[in-house]
């Protein structure tokens, strides 16, 4: 019964989305007839409660063990704790599409409620575009991926999934479900997919806004600011999603890494890269009236990448730990992304002439040119990523050879681009618009080099790594100093303005500083993440050894002593094998560590949970690889020493903090 209501709510949502399109079209036909437009808007707003009803019902079914529902029996089991049962909502194909659609309804609801200043001529087109997107996703749910499908036992003894009862069949109610893939039973599962999805879904707003402006041919630069704000919001959540994913991989996948250049990881990175490019190039449009066509193209591409990424992860075309099972739903995604690309690019071309640049470039050494180069590098990264992701498909089609494009390709190709980007990131804030010069920072640069020298010498004396690593670290330090110098200059500026305007309180000054330096905080986050990457990628040491009781493993300055192994069951259906290790460094006791392996009885799968000891200097990351059967006499351990790994996470937090500063309050107030 409940499932029928949930399914019915989906049909109502479908009807409301269609009605919103029709009412918008009629409203426009009647030259902006307010009653029709209002009616379309209300219908679009009403989608949020209807789809919320549908999702609430699915959550009730998931948490109450209604295993006659195919999706519930696939992703939950009796032994799973409540919050994983709720998180199972996005753990499978159909649930995650429903979740995506729900987020889309929230985002559009919030947009139409909060953005009061939408021009009358844009509103109907925006509604049409968002409604078409909703129609697409709800149609997928109704036709291909119905999360409310039930299990039916046929006369032949086969069990099939379907919403309507096949003739002569009866409802099949399993006693227990398969349960969520154990790898997904981690706190990361609760936060990573929702953040990532929210980020990706949010891109629909700038896309719809831009398309409305393009269709109505009202391309004054007003759209840039609206899009900037929403893209920044999407970017915040997408960044958070990617960072949480990295942390999850570090915590649970058991390979001592945070980023595996997995095709689906890259599919989420690509829209992030194009959005990052937009965030920079849109400033060139706001300040100098440049890159107008380019910014439109970036928004179109970003949204297309979002849908293309969904297509890749849901079609089964690519093999990945992230990918959903093979599904025909991929074809629908493919058609949708082609439609988006053709229509949007067609529109852009038709408006090409009216989108002439409003200004000229005065000098090669100007902030706008630096932004153009940064954009070129971001696009370069996108090309490298897309090509690496799609090459296995081309190879199979053209020469019939299955290949894997793994980390070596990406690391070799992207690292030079990242180095150039870091360099631009460091110097661009010091180069002014129109005609810049490096005079302003010449003296400071020399001072920074002098500051850098003892650090370089220190790294060499302490033999922190080979010469190349020291050069990379030195370079990262230099960019860090430059960015801190930039913040210092902002403080000077704020103080100067404070003297001119003595009414300003200290709190106000801090607020102004936060606003003017927000971007630089994001940059500091990036540099700290770079330290983490250099540490793990270039300075990581690993060893795998079998040890007997009380035997020691030495890795760099650390000593690990194996004390024992305990094996026990837990109430949530796991059998845990946990090793106890004593950690010391230079004869100083540092504590105990417990690497373990969890065996899940319901899915008969094992998950490795590493023991991690983090300090600001380094991480010790230990995996229990194997142990002797029925004995705790000896175990095999794999130990990684990851210098600077913590800076990945500290940098991520600062990055998010900087982005929040950029977002609240809006950027137009940020010019001190």
């Amino acid at each position: 019964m409940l499932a029928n209501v949930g399914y019915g709510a989906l049909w109502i949502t479908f009807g409301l989305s269609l009605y919103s399109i029709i009412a918008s079209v009629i409203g426009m036909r009647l030259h902006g007839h307010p009653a029709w437009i209002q009616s379309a808007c209300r219908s679009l707003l009403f989608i949020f409660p209807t789809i919320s009803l549908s999702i609430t019902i699915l959550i009730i079914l998931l948490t109450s063990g209604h295993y006659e529902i195919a999706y519930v029996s696939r992703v939950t089991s009796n032994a799973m704790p409540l919050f994983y049962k709720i998180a199972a909502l996005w753990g499978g194909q159909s649930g995650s599409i429903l979740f995506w659609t729900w987020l889309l309804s929230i985002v559009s609801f919030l947009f139409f409620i909060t953005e009061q200043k939408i021009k009358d001529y844009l509103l109907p087109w925006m509604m049409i575009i968002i409604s078409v997107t909703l129609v697409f996703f709800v149609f997928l749910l109704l036709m291909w991926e119905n999360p409310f499908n039930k299990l039916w036992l046929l006369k032949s003894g086969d069990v099939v999934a379907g919403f309507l009862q096949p003739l002569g069949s009866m409802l099949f109610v399993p006693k227990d479900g398969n349960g969520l893939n154990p790898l997904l039973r981690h706190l990361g599962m609760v936060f990573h997919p929702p953040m990532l999805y929210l980020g990706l879904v949010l891109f629909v707003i700038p896309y719809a806004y831009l398309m409305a402006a393009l269709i109505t041919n009202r391309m004054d630069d007003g759209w840039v600011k609206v899009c900037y704000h929403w893209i920044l919001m999407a970017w915040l959540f997408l960044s958070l999603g990617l960072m949480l994913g990295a942390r999850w991989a570090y915590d649970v996948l058991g390979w001592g890494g945070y980023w595996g250049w997995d095709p689906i990881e890259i599919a989420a990175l690509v829209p992030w890269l194009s959005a990052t490019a937009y965030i920079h190039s849109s400033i060139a449009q706001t300040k100098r009236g440049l890159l107008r066509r380019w910014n439109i193209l970036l928004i179109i591409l970003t949204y297309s990448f979002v849908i293309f990424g969904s297509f890749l992860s849901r079609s089964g075309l690519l093999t990945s730990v992230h990918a959903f099972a093979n599904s025909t739903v991929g074809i629908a995604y493919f058609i949708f992304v082609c439609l988006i690309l053709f229509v949007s690019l067609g529109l852009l071309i038709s408006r090409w002439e009216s989108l002439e640049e409003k200004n000229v470039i005065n000098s090669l050494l100007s902030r706008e040119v630096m932004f153009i180069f940064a954009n070129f590098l971001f696009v370069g990264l996108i090309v490298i990523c897309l090509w690496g992701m799609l090459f296995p498909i081309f190879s199979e089609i053209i020469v019939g050879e299955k290949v894997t494009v793994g980390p070596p390709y990406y690391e070799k190709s992207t690292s030079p681009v990242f180095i150039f980007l870091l360099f631009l990131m460091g110097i661009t804030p010091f180069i002014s618009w129109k005609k810049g010069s490096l005079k302003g920072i010449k003296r400071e640069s020399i001072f920074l080099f002098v500051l850098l020298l003892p650090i370089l010498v220190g790294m060499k004396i302490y033999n922190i790594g080979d010469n190349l690593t020291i050069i990379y670290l030195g370079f990262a330090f230099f960019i860090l100093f430059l960015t801190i110098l930039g913040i210092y200059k902002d403080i000077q500026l704020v103080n100067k303005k404070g003297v001119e305007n003595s009414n300003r309180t200290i709190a106000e000054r801090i607020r102004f500083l936060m606003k003017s330096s927000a971007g630089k905080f994001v940059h500091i986050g990036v540099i700290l993440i770079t330290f983490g990457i250099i540490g793990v990628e270039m300075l990581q040491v690993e060893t795998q050894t079998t040890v007997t009781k009380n035997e020691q493993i030495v890795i760099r300055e650390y000593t690990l002593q194996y004390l024992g192994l305990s094996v026990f069951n837990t109430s949530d259906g796991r059998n845990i094998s946990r090793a106890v290790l004593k950690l010391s460094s230079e004869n100083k006791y540092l504590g105990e560590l417990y690497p373990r392996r969890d065996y899940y009885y319901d899915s008969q799968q094992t998950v490795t949970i590493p023991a991690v000891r983090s300090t600001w200097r380094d991480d010790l990351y230990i995996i229990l690889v194997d142990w002797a059967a029925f004995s705790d006499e000896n175990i095999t351990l794999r130990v990684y020493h990851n210098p600077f790994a913590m800076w990945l996470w500290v940098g991520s937090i600062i990055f998010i903090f900087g982005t929040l500063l950029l977002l609240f309050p809006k950027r137009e107030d940020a010019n001190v």
Partner: protein
Amino acid sequence: MYNRAWIFLVLLLFNSVKANEIKPTPVNDNIVNAVAKEIYCPVCDNIPLDVCDTQACVQWREVIREKLSLGWSPDEIKNYFSEQYGGQVLSEPPIHNGVSFNLLIYLIPGIVLLAGFILVIKSIHSGMRRG
């Protein structure tokens, strides 16, 4: 008849000499992992062999250990896996000597980036000329 016996004896001798020459040497986990890192699990999704903990991968790591102990080089082992399970077990498309489709993996981004750079310079130039 005698001839055949001689051939048999020579072969036996040769065989025994060979067996004496290739004496398996013990190989530790770190050396095995260094090779396994560059090979992808043939049955899992994008997981390097050194970190994959399925039973099949444990056995494949033992195959690597065995080959290493017999004196095989890492490249020979990678080729062996590639021949046995297909090119997708290598972490990078193999680029053999001569012209190969796999060369495009580096060529295409290189060409696109170069063309893009020229385009950027040209558009900056034309942006400056407009003034």
